[in-house]
């Protein structure tokens, strides 16, 4: 339970590559933001497949920790969709330990599952068990682990991607817009233990270098492993803000981090106006947008994600070839559109209602 955060001044991006003037950057960013605030569309979801063939099969899903809200919501959504499509869906009650994932896969194999979904656990940490599944002819499909720009793993040809880097990019751009042309001095909070972390941090740096006013940069990074968020993030944020008074934006790569970062900001810099911009769309966090403590959150729609995940799962079970670079959409939530997410905000609200039908059609069930 000791501190595990770090603050390293990253060298500012070469100003040559930064966009000419602050105002242009803001304008450009503003355009992207406005687009991202709109309800995402449900077009071109990929080639059609026939899911009827899969009726009666069982899907086993192993979340990182079945207790956690984020996974509960997702699992519930996927269960509903799978059953609607005529499949059985079982969520393995994992408890966050690799041991429980191993047990989950073993049980899935024992139960002759049609597919195993890794909703969070890293495939690399389960190589032997995944090999067993392969041997048993069961496809293992990682969900929501890598950005859609990533290339699928060799051990798991089918993988459902997520728009992590889009999220990082949008939350960064929002800070640009928010600061009205002033150079962004961002404090980035990451969790190197999680898969997408490195990519998202890189995206933030690139965005600040390419599409932010000159002089924008990541002023400090805090790296905190998930178990230590509660004890470490707040003091680390406080120290970082003290250490570097120029920091004017805080970008936690996952919005659950914001819950610990915000008190730190209020403590160490009550007098400064520092916006918090993040990614995920956790209801508890979107609520903070309502009361202004949080500026913007790039939200995913767990329900939509569930469709994407199962689409990939079905394709895996049918072995109809993976489709690269597809993921669920994101919508940027700020004070202007937070009310569309419900009151109090609920995950999944504010993404329109076109996509379920679209997927039913895609799967030949509609």
């Amino acid at each position, binding site marked *: 339970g000791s501190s595990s955060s770090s603050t390293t001044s990253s060298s500012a991006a070469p100003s040559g590559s930064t966009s000419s003037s602050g105002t242009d950057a803001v304008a450009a960013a503003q355009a992207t933001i406005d687009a991202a605030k709109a309800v995402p569309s449900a077009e071109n979801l990929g080639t059609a497949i026939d899911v009827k063939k899969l009726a009666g099969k069982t899907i086993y899903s192993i979340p990182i920790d079945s207790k956690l809200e984020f996974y*509960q919501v997702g699992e519930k959504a996927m269960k509903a969709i799978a059953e609607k499509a005529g499949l059985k869906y079982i969520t393995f009650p994992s408890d966050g330990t690799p041991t429980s994932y191993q047990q989950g896969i073993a049980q899935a194999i024992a139960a002759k599952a049609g597919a195993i979904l890794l909703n969070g656990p890293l495939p690399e940490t389960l190589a032997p068990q995944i090999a067993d599944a392969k041997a048993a002819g069961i496809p293992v499909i990682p969900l929501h682990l890598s950005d859609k720009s990533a290339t699928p793993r060799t051990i798991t040809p089918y993988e459902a991607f997520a728009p992590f880097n889009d999220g990082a990019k949008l939350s960064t751009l929002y800070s640009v817009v928010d600061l009205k042309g002033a150079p962004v001095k961002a404090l980035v909070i990451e969790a190197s233990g999680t898969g997408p972390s490195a990519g998202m941090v890189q995206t933030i740096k690139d965005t600040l270098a390419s599409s932010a006013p000159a002089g924008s940069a990541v002023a400090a990074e805090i790296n905190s492993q998930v178990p230590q968020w509660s004890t470490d993030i707040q003091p*680390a944020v406080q120290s970082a803000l003290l250490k570097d008074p120029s920091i004017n934006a805080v970008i936690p790569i996952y919005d659950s981090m914001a819950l610990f970062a915000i008190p730190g900001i209020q403590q160490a810099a009550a007098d400064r106006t520092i916006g918090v911009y993040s990614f995920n769309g956790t209801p*508890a966090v979107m609520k903070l947008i309502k009361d202004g403590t949080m500026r913007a959150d790039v939200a995913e729609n767990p329900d939509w994600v569930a469709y994407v995940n199962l689409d990939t799962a079905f394709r895996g079970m049918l072995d109809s070839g993976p489709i690269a670079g597809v993921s669920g959409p994101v919508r940027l939530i700020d004070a202007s559109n937070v009310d569309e997410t419900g009151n109090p905000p609920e995950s999944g609200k504010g993404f329109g209602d076109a996509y379920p039908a679209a997927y039913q059609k895609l799967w030949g069930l509609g």
Partner: protein
Amino acid sequence: MSIVDKTPTESADNVDAGRVRRGFFREPERFALIGVWIALIIFFVIMVPQTFPSTANLSNMLGSQAVLLILALGLIIPLRAGDYDLSIASVLTLSAVIVAALNVNQGWPVWQAAIVAVVAGFAIGVLNGFIVTKFDIDPFIVTLGIGTVVVGITYIVCNSATISGVDRILSKVMLSKPFLSIPLDFYYAVALCAVVWYLFDFTAFGQRLLFVGQNRDVARLNGVAVSRLRWIALTCSATIGAVAGVVYVGTTGSADPVSGAGFLLPAFAASFLGSTALRIGRFNPWGTLIAVYFLVTGITGLQLMGAQQYVQQLFYGGALVIAVILSKIVRSRSERKRLVK
């Protein structure tokens, strides 16, 4: 396995001199930890002159550790009686979640929610104490088990979700900075320190607790109600754990079912490290306070110096061990010195 260092708290240099030595400067080893602490502060003042000595940083360091300090103060009460309480961190989490759930989801006034949370903690403490004393079972495993059950309950209460948006009043009560720009929760922690100190050093309860921790039979043959005291001690720790939970909600404005666990080992570290200061070999509140702020001083300083995360880990662990070793060495050194004169 004794958890209290039973080596004599007095060296025997004053044997032949019937004269009673109780002066402040008796036993320099009592101040070894403070010495290291001061050295550390000086080091950082030199290394990070602009930010480290700033009031902002001071208030940052003092404020950010209040929850941990309160938790550790709860822990040392059963520790003094020779009992571990491993459930205290789970109680903190449950209490925090109860406050948030009642206040946010049920719309109760926050102070009512807080009372319910503390009562819940109290009840858990009573249960711990009951099992430990009635069935005479090692508290280590009892509190480990009950703690796990409490975690389960926590998930039910908050229905596995993070609950945010707790009434701002609570945060104000905890974080506003009326004097010296130090947040209130620090003052609460210090106040609790004083209370525990009074309890330990100036009340019959404290003395009896000490005997229970040192030798249950002796305590019992001297008419001390050993079981009742152990029970009370475990109840105190759980109740204080719940209070820490309320403060925690105040500082974060939200509550989730996992956060609290991270506090357990640091709280133990602080308690044991504290028992090497001021009253060597005995768990004592002021020593615990010093331990907490000694550790955070190091961590914060390193953060301000921009050290890597692992450097902080190395410091945390290293400091723990070295500080303890040091107080031992100084002790025997000073004993030898006393012998020659």
